[in-house]
């Protein structure tokens, strides 16, 4: 029924708009009938799969494999055949440190600074993100007036582009910004937040939580709503206290969703780039330089660009991401099994 409705409602304008499309599709049909006669049904399956696989092969698979070759070459040339083979030199360079606990003792000190920053960012952002979105989901799961409105409130920033998010907060955190205005009311002097190393770092954590928490809240909320209400009713009959009900019913039943969300947040946090690049540009100094920005700048932006080194760094990051994704897949599979058993 649903699929038919656009036809019926848009019979006037819709028909005229679709007319050329229809004609084109009709024209394509004749050669495709011929193809079908020659290649058979199986050939048609290949035909339907072809465009996707072609694009996918050229722009995802090929670069994926070339990346390994890339990471073993040196120089600044762009195309692989022009590049000189250096073996594991790029990796050796990344790992060349006199003291493994001090980023500044490494040849590629910015890489390790970026890794360290990303590590701290991931730890803080993931923890806070989970706490904030779990609380929000729990609150939205209550018997609320206008729940879909409140859900939309928290979801709103998810759709904004990272650039817009970065600019919104850059505008608020600057010297004449809203934050200083608010604090001024309490007698504080204006402060340039993004010029301070620690505050800039905190800002990147806070802003990325602000921008994405609605997404994870939504997944957790779906998990909460799948928990049968009668469990709580039974618990209430037995005189169970709400905190105990939360620890014994909500958390265990939400655990699969929670784990998936943790891994999703982790994967996204490791790759943080866009909004930070606009908000702080990695500064002040290197205090908010994260690993994706390091790869981007090493590969493209600096004067002495070194695509081989960037490729090696991106492969190291890729390994971390693959481990995390496999973790997510196995977790979601085990949660699916549990769901099936229920």
């Amino acid at each position, binding site marked *: 029924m*649903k*699929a038919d409705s*656009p036809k019926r409602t848009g019979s006037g304008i819709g028909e005229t708009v679709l007319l050329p499309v229809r004609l084109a599709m009709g024209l394509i*049909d004749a050669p*495709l009938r011929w193809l079908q006669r020659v290649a058979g*049904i199986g050939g048609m399956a290949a035909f*339907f*799969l072809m465009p*996707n*696989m072609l*694009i996918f092969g*050229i*722009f*995802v698979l090929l*670069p*994926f494999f*070339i*990346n390994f070759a*890339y990471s073993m070459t040196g120089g600044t040339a*762009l*195309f692989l055949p022009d590049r000189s083979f250096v073996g594991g030199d790029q990796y050796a360079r990344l790992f060349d440190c006199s003291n493994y606990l001090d980023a500044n003792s490494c040849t590629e000190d910015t890489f390790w600074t970026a890794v360290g920053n990303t590590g701290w960012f991931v730890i803080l952002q993931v923890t806070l993100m989970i706490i904030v979105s779990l*609380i*929000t989901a729990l*609150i939205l799961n*209550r018997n609320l007036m206008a729940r879909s409105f*409140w859900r*939309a*409130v*928290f*979801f*709103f920033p998810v*759709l904004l*582009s*990272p*650039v*817009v998010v970065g*600019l*919104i*907060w*850059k*505008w608020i955190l600057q010297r*004449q*910004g*809203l934050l200083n*205005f608010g604090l001024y009311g309490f007698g504080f002097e204006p402060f340039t937040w993004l010029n301070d190393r620690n505050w800039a770092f905190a800002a990147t954590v806070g802003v990325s939580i*602000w921008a994405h928490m609605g997404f994870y809240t*939504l997944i957790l*909320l779906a998990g909460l709503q799948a928990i049968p209400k009668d469990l709580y009713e039974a618990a209430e009959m037995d005189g169970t206290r709400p905190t105990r009900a939360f620890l014994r019913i909500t958390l265990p039943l939400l655990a699969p969703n929670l784990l998936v969300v943790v891994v*999703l947040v982790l994967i996204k946090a490791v*790759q943080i780039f866009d909004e930070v690049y606009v908000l702080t*540009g990695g500064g002040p100094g290197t205090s908010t330089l994260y690993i*994706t920005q390091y*790869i*981007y700048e090493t*590969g*493209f932006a600096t004067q002495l660009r070194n695509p081989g080194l960037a*490729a090696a760094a*991106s492969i190291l990051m*890729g390994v971390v*991401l693959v481990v995390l994704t496999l973790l997510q897949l196995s977790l979601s599979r085990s949660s699916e099994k549990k769901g099936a058993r229920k």
Partner: protein
Amino acid sequence: MSRVAEFLLRRKGGKGWHWTDIVTWIWLLGGLFVMFGPAVWLVGSSFKSPAALAEFPPSILPYVTQKVTVEGYDKPLDLYEATLPDGRKATLAEVRRIGIVSQMVDPQKPGEIIKVNIGQRTPVRQMSFAMQNYSEPFTHFDFVRYLWNSVFVTVTATLITLVVNSMAAFALSKYEFRGRTFAMLLILATLMVPLSVIMVPLYSIVSALGLFNNLWGVILPTVATPTGVFILRQYMLTIPDELIDAARMDKASEWQIYWRIILPLTAPALAVLAIFSVVWRWNDFLWPLIVLSRKELYTLQVGLSIYSGELNVQWHFILAMTVVTMIPVVLVFIFLQRFITTGIAGTGLK
């Protein structure tokens, strides 16, 4: 009075207020402020003149100092409400400021200069929306160009995404062939290969194909999305195979089956994918930043970030352009939010 309070505070089921209710409402109202506040502040600021943007503490609404043209002075002068040394109040125009003393004239009698301590004067202000923040970028910057590039990338990429992925989903859901599972796994495995991991070699491939500094170089790498294949395939699996068999009996070609039967029936899933795709492509940043280095090819996102990273940021233009960039996404949010939230809750994919 207490009756009114009682009416407003009474709750469903006649239960009293629990501390968790108070926490709930503090969280929700705080959330409303924190989530919408920054965006609203940005929109409000975008109507302020550069002078109003530079002042601290900022005003909530866009005010400008009123100006007046005085005989004998080339430029319009700022108007002030000043307390004269003898205690009278008057509306005067400021000629110049020396230290803490302001030299002012009465607009009616421009001959005589009056000296007023700057503490003794307040500007005469009026509300005014600086619409030129919006109109000037269209003429000064290549703003129209960026807008057009963004629209072109978004629309083209979404159309190709729909066609290419629905064809693949059709093959993967309605045909039995060797390697089907392998193809499906391969596509899903792509979820593990984000752009940040392959951007260096992808750049060389796009350059080799002559797509560097070309909008197609932005479009093509994004269109074969695993999420799209996944959503569409799940939906097509629910379409009964009998429909296809019946069509084959009626001598329909496979292409007609795809085009006349499967696609119309998949419309709801296609709509969801289209909405997602529009938001993704409109918001894309890192890849366009790499591929597009010529100014006239920038998308809105790239243009905005480049201009906002300049040394002398022209915030009044940046803010207005940011608002324009937000518009399509806000429209999607207002009218189509329901589709997106159910889409996410259903698949767990962004």
